[in-house]
């Protein structure tokens, strides 16, 4: 455990850049969106005053985690850490970041509701269907997808470290092919209605937290398998 903590401390050495970027980007996105909403004419009805810009936080988190692996892993190995310790430390960091994201975004979504959309009727933190559930469900809705995308970043980072650029291309092409095959299969078998039912029948928490949690665990496991024989 002490080595996992060591790895965590190591990845926090320059934390402003490793952890801060997603939030800095989010702050900028928020400012830009707020400015746009502030100048929107009043005849845009309140239900239309929504934005999906929060997604930027999640995608920057993915990239930040990817870099953590491509750049942080060689550095950690250069300082004689084991792969196990590095993996443990990184997962711990990912979980901490997800918890922080969950708490912060839940709080911000409550502020948004209390200030009637930051004074400009903007639904930024809880747009569309996401504006539901109690505090616990909201926390999970924000935190778990954050962990999932970060874990996805981990997988890509590990693939890059272990198999290089061609590995990432292979991963991308294989994933796209897989999606295409599944789509064709679903269309051919007329399963779209069933898939639609799956989404309407599943609980909100299941969709926003349950399945993403499974995916996050799957991604982290894949990352570990790849990492075991990776060289810096």
């Amino acid at each position, binding site marked *: 455990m002490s080595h996992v903590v060591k790895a965590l401390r190591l990845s926090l050495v320059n934390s402003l850049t490793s952890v801060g970027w997603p939030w800095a980007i989010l702050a900028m996105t928020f400012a830009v969106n707020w400015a746009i909403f502030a100048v929107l004419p009043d005849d845009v009805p309140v239900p239309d005053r929504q934005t999906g810009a929060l997604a930027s936080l999640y995608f920057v988190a993915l990239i930040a985690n990817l870099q953590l692996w491509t750049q942080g892993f060689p550095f950690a190995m250069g300082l004689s850490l084991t792969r196990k310790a590095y993996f443990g430390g990184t997962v711990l960091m990912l979980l901490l970041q997800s918890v922080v994201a969950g708490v912060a975004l839940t709080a911000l979504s409550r502020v948004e509701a209390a200030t009637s959309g930051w004074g400009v009727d903007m639904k930024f933190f809880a747009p569309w269907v996401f504006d539901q559930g109690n505090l616990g469900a909201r926390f999970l809705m924000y935190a778990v997808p954050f962990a999932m995308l970060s874990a996805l970043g981990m997988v890509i980072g590990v693939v890059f470290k272990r198999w290089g650029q061609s590995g990432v291309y292979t991963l991308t092409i294989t994933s796209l092919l897989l999606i295409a095959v599944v789509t064709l299969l679903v269309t051919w078998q007329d399963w779209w209605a069933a898939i639609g039912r799956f989404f309407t029948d599943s609980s909100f928490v299941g969709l926003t937290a349950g399945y993403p949690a499974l995916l996050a665990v799957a991604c982290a496991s894949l990352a570990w398998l790849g990492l075991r*024989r990776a060289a810096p």
Partner: protein
Amino acid sequence: MSVIEFNAVSKRYGGITALDNVSLALGEHRITGLLGRNGAGKSTFMSIATARSFASEGRVRVFGENPYENSGVLDRVCFIGENQTYPQAHKVRHVLDGARIAFPLWDENLARELVDAFGLLTGQLVRKLSRGQRSAVGVIVGLASRAPLTFFDEPYLGLDAVARQLFYDRLVADYGEHPRTIVLSTHLIDEVADLIEHVVVLDHGRVMIDSDADSLRGSAVVVSGPRAAVESFATDHEVLQREDLGGFARMTIRGASADHARQQGLTLEPVSLQQLVVRATTAAGTAPDHTPERVAS
């Protein structure tokens, strides 16, 4: 006690055999020079010893244990490689902060002193440093880590002569106060000749020389004088290299007695470590422009 033990270790990837049945035991509290040409397998040897990469065959022991994923071993190991990369946004001080966290025996005062000695600023971004300055960062981490087993793989790429001398001086001084096992790979053999106590020469993934530096230095001499006298002196010995010039001859001879040569009025010169290594690694006929038996007509 052997700190590093390689038992019939081979490493193959693609069609390349980077290490070919290497068996080596490196003793504690010594500075070992790991020498050899480009692609000889020096870096592969070190990256397997530090569990950064894996042997295809054979048994590797460091401090008596398998180093792979072994934090008990790796906590005592520091590897400084010329191709070490650092996170893009890291400044010099972040690297030092990381090393302080990672190495249990880290000496902060020594690190600060070395930062000043090498003229670095801790606020500089590592990726903006010159090649030599980046090497200096590695050297500082390697020395201040005080790791019981420290590897320096070509640690001073781009460092100027003054900075290299500074590295040698600091290494010897700190090694004297805090004995540890150091493995130093380098091409600048003459520069480190006085520093290293044990010599390992690799060539094409095989161990060519594994010897105490002093006995290696004494193992061969250059004898010169009238051709007949040199030839008669050389008859009982192994001739490593020969040059003829008119009636004079100059031969590098293994296992010759210096006194005996002087009695016969021959001139003796010591052979430098670099020359020995050049001979050991070219004898296999790998470099046609350095044939060992060169005869001037």
